[in-house]
């Protein structure tokens, strides 16, 4: 009897919850289908593809770990991994810091604040390809605005996109410039959720604005900051479009600037070796996963919820 009683109570609960669950699932279904069809299934297919030597028109042969063996012996992959890390290390801290400073400044009550916010956000709205083209003109060593301005003060500007030692920096500058706006908006949202009371209390206690920034603003905005850093790192590791638009095939700087995704593009779509391309992208996935796991572990040390 006790057994029966248990099962009936269980049934009773599940009937109402089941209904609730069903609606829950129906509600997330559109996003779920989108994720499945556009992200998860292709990701699994890419993994499978990375073990194959791809022939033309979808005919592939299983080659086991051959692509990965080739991958770890390919000096271009090593160089591209190095380039990708260098790009991420230069871009992420700079965007995080600059966008936080801009967000704090634009969080003030002042005239025309929405105009400034719009201006900072504009690069996010423009197409990356268009941005890269505009920068390409700015960077032009002979006719570009940047070197012209430098020449006015007597400095001979470098060859921004064709000098192997400078080209990556040029790409980093575009990377920082184009992501500040987006991160700034996120941080602004985070800042506005900080209650005013804390600042008032701090004012009464005589804390300076700088001290308030470090003791109130930074700890309380840290969850948003964490999100910003994680997504910035991911997108930094996936850098491609700016490099593709800025650096032509015959550019002497190509070796020092090509990222892992660029290499993936080259092998998959120019050389038509989609299996090897898939292996490169798997390497990138592994790198991003490791970096993200490390960040999630580290967040306990600096993120305050």
């Amino acid at each position, binding site marked *: 009897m006790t057994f029966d009683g248990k099962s009936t109570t269980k049934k009773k609960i599940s009937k109402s919850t089941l209904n609730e669950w069903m609606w829950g699932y129906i509600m997330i279904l559109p996003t779920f289908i989108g994720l499945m069809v556009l992200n998860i299934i292709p990701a699994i297919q890419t993994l499978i593809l990375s073990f194959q030597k791809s022939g033309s*028109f979808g005919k592939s042969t299983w080659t086991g770990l051959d692509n990965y063996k080739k991958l770890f012996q390919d000096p271009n992959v090593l160089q591209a991994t190095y380039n990708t890390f260098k790009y991420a290390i230069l871009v992420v801290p700079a965007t995080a810091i600059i966008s936080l400073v801009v967000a704090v400044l634009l969080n003030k009550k002042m005239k025309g604040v929405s105009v400034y916010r719009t201006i900072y956000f504009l690069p996010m709205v423009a197409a990356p390809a268009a941005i890269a083209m505009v920068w390409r003109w700015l960077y032009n060593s002979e006719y570009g605005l940047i070197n012209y301005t430098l020449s006015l003060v007597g400095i001979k500007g470098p060859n921004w996109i064709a000098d192997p030692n400078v080209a990556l920096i040029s790409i980093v500058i575009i990377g920082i410039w184009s992501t500040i706006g987006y991160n700034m908006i996120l941080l602004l949202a985070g800042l506005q959720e900080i209650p005013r009371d804390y600042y008032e209390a701090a004012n009464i206690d005589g804390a300076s604005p700088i001290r308030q920034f470090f003791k109130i603003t930074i700890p309380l905005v840290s969850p948003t900051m964490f999100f910003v850093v994680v997504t910035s790192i991911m997108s930094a590791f996936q850098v491609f479009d700016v490099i593709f638009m800025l650096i032509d095939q015959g550019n002497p700087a190509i070796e020092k600037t090509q990222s892992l995704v660029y290499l993936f593009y080259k092998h998959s779509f*120019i*050389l038509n070796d989609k299996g090897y391309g898939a292996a490169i992208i798997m390497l990138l996935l592994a790198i991003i996963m490791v970096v993200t796991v490390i960040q999630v572990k580290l967040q306990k040390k600096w993120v305050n919820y």
Partner: protein
Amino acid sequence: MKKSIKKLISTVLATIALGSVLTGCGGTNSGSKSSSGNVTLTYGIWDKNQEPGMRKMADAFEAKNPGIKVNVEVTAWDQYWTKLDAAATGGSLPDVFWMHSSQSARYASNSILMDLTDKIKGSSLVDMKKFPSGLVNLYVDGGKNYAIPKDYDTIGLWYNKKLFDEAGVAYPNENWTWTEFLAAAKKLTNAEKGIYGFGAPMDLQQGFDNFIFQNGGKVLSDDKTKSGFDTKEVKDAMQWYVDLSLKEKVSPTQTQFAENNYTTFFESGKTAMGLFGSWMLSEFAANENVAKNCDVAVLPQGKQRATLYNGLGNAASANTAHKEEAWKFVEFLGSEEANKIQAESGVAIPAYEGTSEAWMKTQTKFNSKVYAEMLKYAVINPNSKEAVKWQKAETETLLKAFTGKAPVNETCDEVAKKVNEILATEK
């Protein structure tokens, strides 16, 4: 806070998902029967400039073959191959479409293209002897014909008359050798004004390959198993070509070409001479500066005369639902009548013997007839199954020589080694 982040993420994802769905809805179509029971063929091409000419040929075909309609479908070059690749995988190819030599071997060897060998033999309209043999062979795989030549292109020497006049140099003529060419380039170069005599970019078809053949060298051995880059003829030609920018300084360097490509240099009057294929004619005619000041001549000669030629072919899908009709259309496109129509449209040089005169008559802006005249001694653009791969290996390796980081001689040996490895995988 957490909630709003989650909300944000899901909104972003939903937007991305929706965006991809919308862009994914691009039209796909293939030949299908129209309502009246007639057959409609799709003709896939990539050049918008040639669409009117192709339409005229299709009209003439429709007039002769009642009951068959032809849709000319233009897809820009950049998307053409991606789309064709996907269509071939999914079995929804256009019934008839343009083929390019860089892709044909891959398509033919995978049975994507209709085998035309026997059909051509039995045809009264098409005779393969009427086409340049190099062109015909571009579309032969395993002894079988997979496409009928449509047109051809060659490389010519373009020059800026205004810059020649200013420097007091006589225009290029057909007796020019490398020596006269280099002497003129030196006189034309004006470092102060930033004007160069010639543009010598790291380009194969519109660059050093022409000079390699003029020097008696070969890019590939005749049986396509070995690279010619470790031979003296090729090395000498490459040394001479690289020296144009690094030693003689009559050309911008590869670093400069990284910022502005060689076409831009020529179009803006910064280089006085340059090699350009006949496919550039319509672009140059539309460029104000070039149309006013520039013209084209035959290439200067080295040890021998040579220019590269290449051409498109018309191919049919192996799996089309209308095999008979598709062949009929390909056959018509390869006939003298269709080639004459193509000639009169003036955009591409028709491949059929004797029809290029009609094309020459349409060329009033430039001395473009040299393009057709050079066919006599033209060499077919080096080609093999893995052409894309070894061409990429060539340029990637040669970059060191073009930037002066490594001697040309050694780099050429390295190129030969890499290309040989790739060629070995073709068998």
